């Protein structure tokens, strides 16, 4: 069976959205040409573009199709994907289908910045979420707070445990030139920040950032002709639950991610993720989500996320580094930040990590999630080419 491979990665530096001086199209063009240069590929080799957008969150509508026109790669077919916070990780999913089908050889994934131009982002989110839930002035951070509060209540997590995730993220991001927040922080620093929605504080939620990301996916055969070590897409899937509070039995667990991970692991031949994976980049916009994700991914038992973090296993230099880029806690530009985990893992497997290089990394996982009550999940496993695939 034909497999897609990541041949090139391009990202722009992440900055505060309100301080961005480049247009969204300029940022996407910069990321695109960085990915092409990284791969050693020409713009003319691209046969299709898969680009993300989140209408409603963005200050424009149908922006993706117009940005795609301004990348400087000619009139190629454009697939615009939009599924909330899972959009970014869904881009390589679509590209993988197009390439593995045999109809396309080379597909560019583009993650634009989502929040540029928004003045009061929380107010925007509140209005957006009112479209599918009663207008209770709830936004993503409130949904997240409900889930995290349940998790805290059930497992006795304290605020210091949450802050430790942030300390780790900033430590990692300090070495990442693409990250938005690169300042080291302490637990005390994090706990001193204002409360947003209990138990989430300013210091434990993602910043509103601006950047762009691009990945060049090709057939494995074509990737072998290009510049970098070949990173294959071994398995990638998406999944949604009902998106309704009544459809969840337990808010203290990301059951939808757990179910998806089991499917992806099965396809990728992963029996024990803790020993089979070398690096993970997760979309964890709120610090406690990372702990819940450890559990959903089978890295530790339910309720043991905080103690697992304290072992140091997920730190750079640990047994299974998680978010060595710093993750979305140190830069969340929307679709760009949802696609970035695949770029960061690909760079790790190529031996060209943006931040801390995981020694001898050969297999990694990447993810993003979103929409109401974080109902949509997309997750994939990448492998360094072993020379056997088509």
């Amino acid at each position, binding site marked *: *069976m*034909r497999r897609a491979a990541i041949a090139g990665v391009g990202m722009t530096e992440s900055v505060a959205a309100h301080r961005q001086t480049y*247009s*969204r199209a300029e940022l996407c063009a910069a990321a695109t040409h960085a990915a092409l240069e990284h791969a050693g590929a020409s713009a003319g080799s691209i046969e*299709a573009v898969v680009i993300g*957008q*989140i*209408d*409603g*969150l963005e200050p*424009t*509508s*149908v*922006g*993706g*199709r*117009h*940005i*795609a*026109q*301004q990348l400087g790669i000619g*009139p*190629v*077919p*454009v*697939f*615009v*994907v*939009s*599924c*909330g916070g*899972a959009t970014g990780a*869904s881009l390589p*999913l*679509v590209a*993988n*289908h*197009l390439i*593995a*089908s*045999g*109809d396309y050889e080379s597909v560019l994934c583009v993650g634009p910045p989502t929040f540029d131009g928004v003045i009061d982002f929380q107010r925007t989110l509140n*209005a*957006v*979420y009112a*479209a*599918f839930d009663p207008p209770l002035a709830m936004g993503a951070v409130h949904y997240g707070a409900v889930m995290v509060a349940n998790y805290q209540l059930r497992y006795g997590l304290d605020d210091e445990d949450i802050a430790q995730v942030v300390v780790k993220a900033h430590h990692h991001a300090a070495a990442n030139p693409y990250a938005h927040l690169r300042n080291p922080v302490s637990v005390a620093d994090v706990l001193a920040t204002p409360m947003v929605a209990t138990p989430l504080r300013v210091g434990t939620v993602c910043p509103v950032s601006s950047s762009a990301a691009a990945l060049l996916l090709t057939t494995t055969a074509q990737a072998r002709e290009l510049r970098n070590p070949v990173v294959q897409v071994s398995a990638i*899937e*998406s*999944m*949604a*639950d*009902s*998106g309704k509070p009544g459809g969840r039995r337990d808010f203290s667990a990301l059951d*939808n991610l757990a*179910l998806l991970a089991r499917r992806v692991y099965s396809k990728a031949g992963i029996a024990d993720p803790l020993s089979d994976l070398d690096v993970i980049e997760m979309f964890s916009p709120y610090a406690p989500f990372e702990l819940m994700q450890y559990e959903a991914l089978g890295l530790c038992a339910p309720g043991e996320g905080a103690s697992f973090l304290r072992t140091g296993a997920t730190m750079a230099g640990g047994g299974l580094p998680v978010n060595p880029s710093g993750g979305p806690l140190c830069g969340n530009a929307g679709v760009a930040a949802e696609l970035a985990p695949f770029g960061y893992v690909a760079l790790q497997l190529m031996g060209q990590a943006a931040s801390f290089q995981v020694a001898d990394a050969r297999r990694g996982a990447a993810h993003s999630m979103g*929409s*109401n009550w974080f*109902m*949509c999940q997309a997750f994939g496993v990448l492998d360094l080419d072993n020379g056997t695939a088509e």
Partner: protein
Amino acid sequence: MTERPVLVGIGTVGPDAFDDRAIDEATFAATRAALHDAGVSKSDVDISIVASIDVFDGQSMSNGITTPAAAGWLTGEYRVEADSGIALVAGAAAIASNSAEVAVVVGVHWPASVGDALQFATDASSVSFEPAVERALGLSAVSALGLHAARQIVTGSTTRDEMAVAAARDARKRGASVDPADILAADTVAWPLTRAMVSVADAGVVAVVLASPMRARMLRCPRVRLLGQGVGTGGSSMNDEWFHDPAASTRRAAEAAYRRASIATPSTSIAAVEMTAPSIALLEPLRTALMIEGLPEERWNPGRGALGGAAGAASGLARVADAVRWLDEHGETGSRAVAHAADYPTGPFASSATVHVLERI
């Protein structure tokens, strides 16, 4: 793509007058009908792909409500913001890549407004132009289509009277009793186009079920094979293709579809065409772009005419459903039809066109 996916079920709500169902109710109704038509259940579905354009439905992040209704609950899923013809290409790729055995593809156009549909679409379109031109110019799909139509007249490609004759002929295909004078007497929306010369999208949801060839053989009613598909995206403000050659995206899509279907001479291989034109001035350029010369007039849009039956992002699948119906009623095993659609949220700017070659089984 070696083994082409098979279309095994269709379900529709509309396209016709607005009804009072919510967007997820209409999505569920169409999806349920398609699953029933195919003879499969929700648990058979491996992936669900929804196509809709939020601003035209008065929604935001609508996947939150349409995906579960489109059999996308606990299955693979994603949404595209484009015409459903694009989603059909993506669904076929999911199957051809061996990632899925059964895929549901749903096109949704369910505007929140129950007032003047053209005015609502024009307002939404005007907002959608901002990322194209980086500022609010007051452009809309209709005004851009008017610019193109005016150019057709100025360059001598056609006349306003000829447009009226073509629009009346197209309207008669869907049973309307109008003559060219009626077309010209309608309100002008963007000179030289009158309201009767542009398509107005009705609300509609169309769902189809695709299956791998192996899985299709186990189902009760495999309908057509997706022999070849192509996608083309039109130029934007970066060049003048939208103005001088807005049918170019359709031409690129057709070339790709025929190549994948191994069709060298479409004129002798295609028995009928269902296509979408957003304005009567684009009808002939789009027909030419499809490269099917010599097809009798009654085989062009035998369903509802090129301006009729439009359903926003659901149009692509609506045309596929019309083409399948024609093959069911008039074709025989091996007969082929073409379904074409494009989305026009910003008129001919960056419009994505799809061409699907369907072969009756």
